[in-house]
């Protein structure tokens, strides 16, 4: 009897859990942000599809994000690496497994490669501030964090208790509605927030060559450094090299150990 009771309870519990999970799957939020990367002249949309367990963030693929390597005789350099396909850059977060899988483009030996990289969900050391403001109709609180070479001011609302946000940001007790980097380069600004009409499957991106995170970091750091030195050494006579040559406008610019 006891066994049957236990069985029934666990079955009921299981069914209940299933129904919750189902409910949660339906409760997918679709958040549209304006993504601004001032330095790379990007002002485009980016979308976050999130439930409380997993999320998929997609940068809008734009025709003008093509790879662009340009330099002039004064030594100003710009590298914008876009993608060779229509899928664009994606970030998948899984909160249960505490992992993050992203799809990105790397510039290796003159070619753009699509890669799939897995890393641990970054542990962000949030610094809570007392400032509040309203975004849309939501009361938001301010938090600051330094992540991969930039310090960000982040506004989130506890009125939507999803611990998620755009790009790799997460881990606050509410949905992140606005992000601004202190160097003015990066912005994620809320444009629209609604319940997802469904149809979006939140799953890890697969279309690309899987490489390790360490490998990814190594390639990224090397390409930029080599690139800059190569360009500088080609300048004509009398051109002055400035102490702070070229700004790196990419989202992640510092992978040094304590920033990871």
């Amino acid at each position, binding site marked *: 009897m006891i066994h049957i009771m236990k069985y029934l309870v666990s079955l009921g519990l299981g069914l209940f859990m299933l129904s919750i999970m189902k409910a949660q799957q339906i409760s997918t939020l679709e958040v549209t942000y304006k993504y601004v990367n001032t330095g*790379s*002249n990007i002002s485009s949309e980016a979308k976050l599809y999130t439930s409380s367990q997993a999320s998929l963030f997609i940068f809008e693929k734009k025709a003008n994000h093509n790879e662009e390597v340009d330099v002039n005789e004064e030594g100003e350099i710009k590298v914008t690496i876009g993608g060779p396909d229509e899928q664009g850059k994606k970030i998948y977060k899984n909160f249960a497994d505490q992992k993050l899988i992203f799809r990105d483009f790397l510039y290796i030996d*003159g070619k753009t490669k699509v890669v799939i990289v897995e890393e641990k969900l970054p542990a962000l050391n949030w610094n809570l501030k007392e400032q509040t403001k309203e975004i*849309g109709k939501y009361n938001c609180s301010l938090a600051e964090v330094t992540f991969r070479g930039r310090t960000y001011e982040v506004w989130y609302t506890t009125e939507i208790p999803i611990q998620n946000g755009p790009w790799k940001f997460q881990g606050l007790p509410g949905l992140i509605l606005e992000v601004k980097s202190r160097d003015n380069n990066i*912005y994620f600004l809320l444009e*629209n927030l609604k319940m997802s009409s469904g149809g979006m499957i939140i799953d890890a991106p697969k279309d690309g060559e899987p490489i390790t995170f360490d490998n990814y970091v190594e390639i990224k750091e090397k390409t930029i450094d080599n690139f800059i030195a190569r360009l500088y050494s080609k300048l004509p006579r009398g051109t002055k090299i400035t102490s702070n040559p070229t700004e790196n406008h990419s989202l992640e610019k510092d992978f040094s150990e304590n920033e990871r």
Partner: protein
Amino acid sequence: MNAKRFFIKVIGLLLVLISCHVKVVGQNTINGRIVDSSKTGLPAANIILKKTTNRAVLAFTFSDKDGFFSIEIKDTSYTYLEFSSIGYKTNIVKISSVDKFLNGGILVIVMEPQSFDIEEITVTSKRPVTIKKDTIIFDAAFYSTGDEQVVQDLLTKIPGINVNEEGTISIAGKEVEKVMVEGDDFFERGYKILTKNMPSAPIDKVELLQNYSNNPLLKGIEASDRVALNLILKKEARRIWFGNVNIGYDLISANRYGIIGNLMNFGKINKYYFLTNLNNIGQDATGDIAHLIRPFRYDEPASIGDDQQVNNLLMLSGRNPELKKDRTNFNNAELLSLNAIFNPTDKLKVKTLGFFNWDEQNFFRNSTQIFTANETNFTNTEGYRFRNASITGFGKIDMTYNISQNKMLEATTKYNKGDNYDFSDLLFNSISTIENLQTNYERFDQKITFSNKFKKNKALLLTGRIINEIAPQNYTINRFFYQDLFPQHNVEADNAQQLSKNQMQFAGLDGHFFHRKQNGSLLEFQLGNQTRKDNLLTSFLIKNGDAIASDNITGFRNNTKYLTNKSYIKSKYRLAINNFAIISKLDIHQLFNYLEFEEVAQNQWRFFINPTIGIDWQVDKNNQITGSYSYNITNASIQDVFSNFVLTGFRSFEKGTGQFNQLDASTFFINHRLGNWSDKFFANTTILYSKNHDFFSTNNLITPNYSLLEKIVIKDREFLNISSDLNGYIKRISSNLKLDLNYSKSNFKNIVNNSALRAITSTSYRYGLELRSGLRGNFNFHIGTKWTTSEIKTTGINNTFTDNLTFLDLFFAYNNKIDMQLQTERYYFGNLDKDNNIYYFLDFNIRYTAKPNKLIFSMAGKNLFNTSTFRNFSINDLGTSTTEYRLLPRFVLLKLEFRF
């Protein structure tokens, strides 16, 4: 690091274990569990501490996988605990009501299910960046941090706008064309005067204009890859005067100085700009405003008549050595410039510009010329002390009237007047000689352009221009070297004079049609008529003291009237198919020439076609080939057609052909590029071949005291140039090795002292090697050497020489405040005698930025080895010449630059 981290982890783990098992924790910690109605733990729920229910979050934590949590209450002002999770109703608990759990125990929070649903919201707020088709608008408020002083500081804060230490602004590697204020601009490429001085406070928005067109109606129609910035002022911005002063004073001899002052005032409607430059350090003061006088408009629509000007027959200053001009220019310049822009109505813009320049230049040169042509051998020596005083006045008014959205009328009126006094004290073969030359010139220039963008992708430009220029010259020389030429005046002649008046009138009308096709191809069609009328009057006077011995010598006076009228139809089409483009150009000309001298008039009609065909082929990512072929017929100008001799130097007379000429030429050009600038290996090779089917050569009669040079038309001149530069990046030393190779050869013919036509071959080889570091630290170097071998071959002459230039530049940047540059050069002349064939130069510049864009101290040293003379060696088909120039002595300028 790792050990420390491990230690912290262990401690953390221990603390967790202790808190779990003992369940006796610090007084201010609340332990609890969040469960649903069935008492199952809820994972990853939010536990938030707040002061009031809607104020900022003070601390938070998440429940673990079984719903347990632990939160520390650090401050008594923490009053509320908020529990939330998706799919549940948020629970708010006053800490005072649960304070018994502060001492231990488990606070159990039961969450009530609530379907998660939110209303859709759309936020529209100010954006830091707004991107419209070709315009990117940055909202200054987003980027300003309040500590900016000048425009440059603000621009520096906008990522993507790159401002280097010199203040050069570039976007995506391309320097900006100009920085406008409310669409108005004074400075063009000289925008640093503005960006380094204008306060940033009144700036509301910064607009980045891509594919910029100087004519706004051609935007999106003409091909352009230019970028420009436009600053929009705040509505309530207050007008203020601002500017800067740059003062330099020589520490060594204390008699050199340089002062530059800028003063300006920019409002939404009117703008003013004043500039002054006083210096005696060899700087050309008008260089600061050259872009204001003649805006850089290369190959732009509506630019007819830009090449129309009077060329003076006589110039005393002579050639400059291949050195920076400020090494030999002993000057004393004073310049004052006043400029304004008015916008009296929305549709009308008036821009005025005026300047006065006084300059006094001294130049010293000694030369030895050895003539060895056609069995005439002699040596001339010249010792020149040259002085020039000039006064120049310039005024310009630009008016732009926007008739409607798609129609615009622009008018530019320019007037300039100048007086030039040249004086030379010459020692010619030990004979002391004085020359005086007075040149007065006056020029009036009026241009009107009407632009009509009558369809979205079609535009028509109508341009009319009138130019009137007159430049009389009066030349005197206190010796008479031409006895052999004028034997009948041998007795009485002891000095000479030449009076000339050179006048030019130009009128042109041009219609230019643009059609940007759907597929992106651009069709251009141009129809016009241009007339140029020249009148050249010269008379050579043989004098005895003040008395004129003869002023009417046959063959040495001119009264030439030359009129050319050409009607033309030009078309241009660029057809692009994938990575291959064909550019075809067809210019059809109907020419009418009229020439009159010595009461005899003649005229000529000629019809001709100038075709060009070009390709632009992007073979693959690493290879690009561009090439073109053109056949070009050019009409002779006044300098080619006048019929009698004029004096063009103290011992040279020159004359034109006295008849109409059109010269035919074919040109081939091909360029191959391998790799990109940024690649490890990058090479660029160009081959240029041109053949002049006819060309102007000379029939020379050369004697020690004078030369007669007569233009003649000869067939077939060839020119070939092959140049290549190869760049290889050496990773190990972060440096680029560059190899520069150049070969050129030309064949032509001329006549010297009644010789037959002599074939002359001139060849030159250049090979250079450079190594430049691209280190990101505070030191960099650039070292290079370049050898040039020149060779001239003709009957009886075979001259060869090899020169070398080696340089080493060092750059130090200690920090953001101090930087230093050191430049050294070594010149070697293969054909000079051993004691005089090597010259060294050392210059330096140290800058200390006390306050960025506010106060800068710098020290500039020039010619530190105090090299007093510089000798050049050159060869041509008539012989060789050695020229020695006197150089500005060593000076060290202490400079102070401040903004007010």
